[in-house]
């Protein structure tokens, strides 16, 4: 693990809000030369701390008005059923996120749909037919925000 100074943390914070900022723009903001900024960003990328980009879109404007988080419990457990379930669930285009978790549920899924009727279709035809599926709990997403995390 590499050591970060305050400038590195400030760069991470700025890039986590806007990854399109150029080394020149970042340098001006934090009082660094453009090459020095570029070197720091490069070092963070090479260390795997900066791990790519995420595009944040207005899903409703693109016709996907409903996002639902599903907590899923498997009816049968064991290595084979986990693999079968994971293979089938990751292939569903409406399922954006699949997390294996420990607790009340076995998996957490983020599902997008055009509207509630479309969500019902995805739930009935795609989710409830997954291999090994047991109990499912749905929570409809109202708002979401990302926080900068412990970079201060």
């Amino acid at each position, binding site marked *: 693990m590499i050591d970060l100074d305050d400038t590195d943390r400030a760069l991470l914070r700025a890039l986590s809000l806007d990854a399109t900022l150029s080394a020149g723009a970042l340098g001006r903001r934090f009082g660094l030369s453009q090459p020095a900024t570029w070197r720091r960003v490069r070092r963070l990328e090479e260390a795997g701390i900066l791990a790519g980009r995420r595009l944040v879109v207005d899903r409703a404007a693109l016709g996907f008005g409903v996002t639902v988080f599903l907590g899923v419990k498997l009816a049968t457990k064991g290595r084979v059923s986990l693999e079968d379930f994971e293979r089938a669930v*990751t292939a569903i285009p409406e399922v954006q996120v699949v997390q294996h978790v*420990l607790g009340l549920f076995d998996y*957490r899924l983020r599902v997008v749909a055009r509207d509630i009727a479309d969500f019902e279709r995805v739930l009935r035809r795609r989710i409830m037919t997954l291999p090994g599926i047991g109990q499912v709990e749905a*929570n*409809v*997403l109202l708002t979401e925000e990302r926080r900068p*995390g412990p970079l201060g």
Partner: protein
Amino acid sequence: MLDDTDRRLLRHLLADPGLGTAELAERAGITAATGWRRLEKLTAAGVIKAQEAVIDWRRLGYEVEVALRFTLDKTEPRAFDEFLAAARLVPEVTGIETFLGRVDVRLTVIARDMQHYADVYRSRILMLPHITDIEALMLIATIKDAEALPL
């Protein structure tokens, strides 16, 4: 309104958000200049809200990630606002989501290890206002994490 070219551009960019404008335009079958103009337009219209850098917290020594699901006291009219305002002040909270369903709010909390998590949980999370119930889901593995939409 979006046309087919916009959708095609977004489909490629959602699938591979690290693409440069030139390569993105090539994949979408348009010129780089058109691609750049379209992206500017989609950003100005708010369809593209942001392009954020993804931080790998594990590489920074945060090995533990927990999704905490809260039920709040709905007899208190300011419960949501006050809870959310207080949650924003906890540095280890990396995401806040609100829901319609059995769960009211979910916080994503990261910590260096279980001892650190226990400290954050006791000293910061349990101090948040208007909580009636908490459930924890500890992340074992992320199998899929994509922003792609079936456009």
